[in-house]
């Protein structure tokens, strides 16, 4: 994979202090989610009931995000990679908020990151929402994520780091 060559082997997805970089890939699953209860899951591709055609636009995004996921996993094995549906708001919003704050973002910046992360498709790196709503081609996304990962982070010192002499 060509993207792998741009990664400094010394970085390997880790921040100073040994913490790993966190990348959240947001995309909708190709099925109905909240409100229809379990019935919504019948329309999925896996159930052989033909429902996938209705969700072909979501499927296309899933495929592209899958491509980005595989490329990132190959290029930076240490990354903490999470793929999540934006309708899983119980997990997504707090996770982006925590990550943004942990990486030094102010309250408004963190709120903005959360607001942008809740989209049919989004890419969030260390609490910073790089893309929201639409994605450029995979190579462009990869380049942006890798640039961000290799950038020195203004992360707040962790409790462990503060205890270091």
């Amino acid at each position, binding site marked *: 994979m060509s993207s792998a060559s741009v990664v400094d082997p010394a970085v390997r997805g880790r921040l100073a202090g040994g913490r790993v970089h966190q990348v959240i890939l947001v995309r909708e699953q190709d099925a*109905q989610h909240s409100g229809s*209860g379990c*019935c919504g899951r019948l329309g999925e591709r896996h159930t052989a009931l033909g429902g996938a055609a209705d969700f072909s636009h979501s499927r296309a995004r899933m495929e592209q*995000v899958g491509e980005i996921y595989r490329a990132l996993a190959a290029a930076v094995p240490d990354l903490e990679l*999470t793929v999540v549906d934006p309708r899983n708001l119980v*997990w997504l919003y707090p996770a982006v908020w925590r990550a943004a704050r942990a990486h030094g973002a102010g309250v408004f910046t963190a709120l903005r990151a*959360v607001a942008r992360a*809740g989209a049919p498709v989004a890419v969030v790196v260390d609490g910073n929402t790089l893309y929201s*709503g639409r994605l450029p081609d995979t190579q462009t996304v990869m380049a942006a994520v890798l640039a961000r990962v290799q950038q020195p982070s203004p992360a707040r010192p962790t409790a462990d780091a503060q205890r270091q002499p």
Partner: protein
Amino acid sequence: MPAFLLIVITLVAFYFAYKFYSRYLAEKVYRLDPNFVTPAHAMRDGVDFVPTHKHVLLGHHFTSVAGAAPIVGPAIAVYWGWLPALTWVILGTIFAAGVHDFGSIVVSARNRGQNIGTLSGKVVSARASTLFLLIIFFLLTLVNAVFGVVMAILFEKNPGAVVPALIVIPIAVFIGQWAYRMGRSIVIPSILGLLLLYAAIPVGQAYPIYVDGLAEAVGLSVRTTWIILIFAYTWIASRLPVWVLLQPRDYINGQQLIVALAVIFLGVLIGWDTISAPAVNEVAPNSPHWFPYLFITVACGAISGFHSLVASGTTSKQLGNETEARFVGYGGALGEGALALAAILACTAGLGAAGDWNAAYADFGAASGGALGHFVTGTGHFLSNLGIPATLGATFAAVVVITFAGTTMDTGVRLQRYILEEIAELAGVKALVGRVNLLTTLAVLIPLGLALLPGGDSSGGKGFAFGRLWTLFGTTNQLTAGLALSIIGVWLLARNRNPLAALIPLVFLLFMTTWALLLNLGDFFAKGDWLLLVMDAAIFVLAAWLVVEAFTAFNRERRNPSAAAEES
């Protein structure tokens, strides 16, 4: 008894169940292996197969299974008293739903993430996958019928909810355009949409919408008119691309679910209401007896077979470590049990504080036809504990249920369309294949016919037929659970493990379901409800078929244990 105490009792029971029983299941029954390479790793593609943190997966699993059904069943079941309803919710969740949801994830993960329909053909028998499709056909027909009636009853009883329920449509369409066509984030618009929806509640109160004039003009009852209008809307909604209305409404629904759960439990904590409803109700003569009807009235919230679709459809494909199936599967079942608890509290403590509980649950017709009205009134009372006027709170609760029910019907009609097309293909009826408008019309007319069946609206507005439709829906849901539990049991037996944890709830469910179906047969025959009689007979045949399939598969594995399912 203070309502708060019921929360404590339930949560303590759930805590110990998770700590001890789910551990027993994990270690002794499913024997989870932390070194097992799950499909999420073995077939990792970042699309469907993605190793996912257990907290992310629980959020996904829970928001996928939560809907209106865990509200309706308990809201009817408190007719027999809060004690039987709560006992079944607690015991069903712990010993049936937990085993079922947890086991469905494990068996699917051990079979390359295959779904329960495929597994039924592979683990039980080739015929079982046909059985699965037929059960789904009946289930969807009944889902669409009961939720059509649910919405009609709520509109009839809460005309103030019509405006906010209608407002949701343009809000969702706007969000759809904003997010899917313009490629923007959805958080701010969906929060603003939710606020706009809540702002529409007092507007709806000020300008209630009645269809009495229309009903009179066409010579139908108000409820029948609403039912027809709702199915007409569903026809249109299910023909729209999903991104226009269905998907954007997901975001509003997700937020509504959290808000509704929060206000109910907060209202109970702050109001410190007592439960004035009887622990065990002396029911009116000729009412269905709680044994066996309780166990098919509360399906979702005690055990729901359709959770196996979520568990095997997507959850198993994202399981990062097999040991996490316990947290996600068993934990998700407990979450659904908590939803059912909220409904019980609203229909006992909330309703009792707001009005005359005994009058509301005077007979089974009033209990079932008015179930959601009771939930709405009870929730309105809990909101009044938080300083919100009870009438506004009731409209809020009605809007929550209506938007959930509308989403369910939109999805259900689409799915029924696919199934009808498959059946047409199998039967060689080429005139139907590819005829989307015709298929959609059929998918609407079948449940509409059931919703308007003779007796459905002629019971003096008590909606007695709704209760019977609902219990039929419960039987199909329990049959799906039975099928999943059969798969789990056979899978365990094939590995020389004790299958009792799956076998006991399976036998219990099949016994209660077939018994209730038999009682229904006699009842429908005596009353001349021929359409319901045919439906009931067909579901009974499916139940008998399932018993035969399960028995044959268990017998086969007991005599000649084989690896009933290849493990990845």
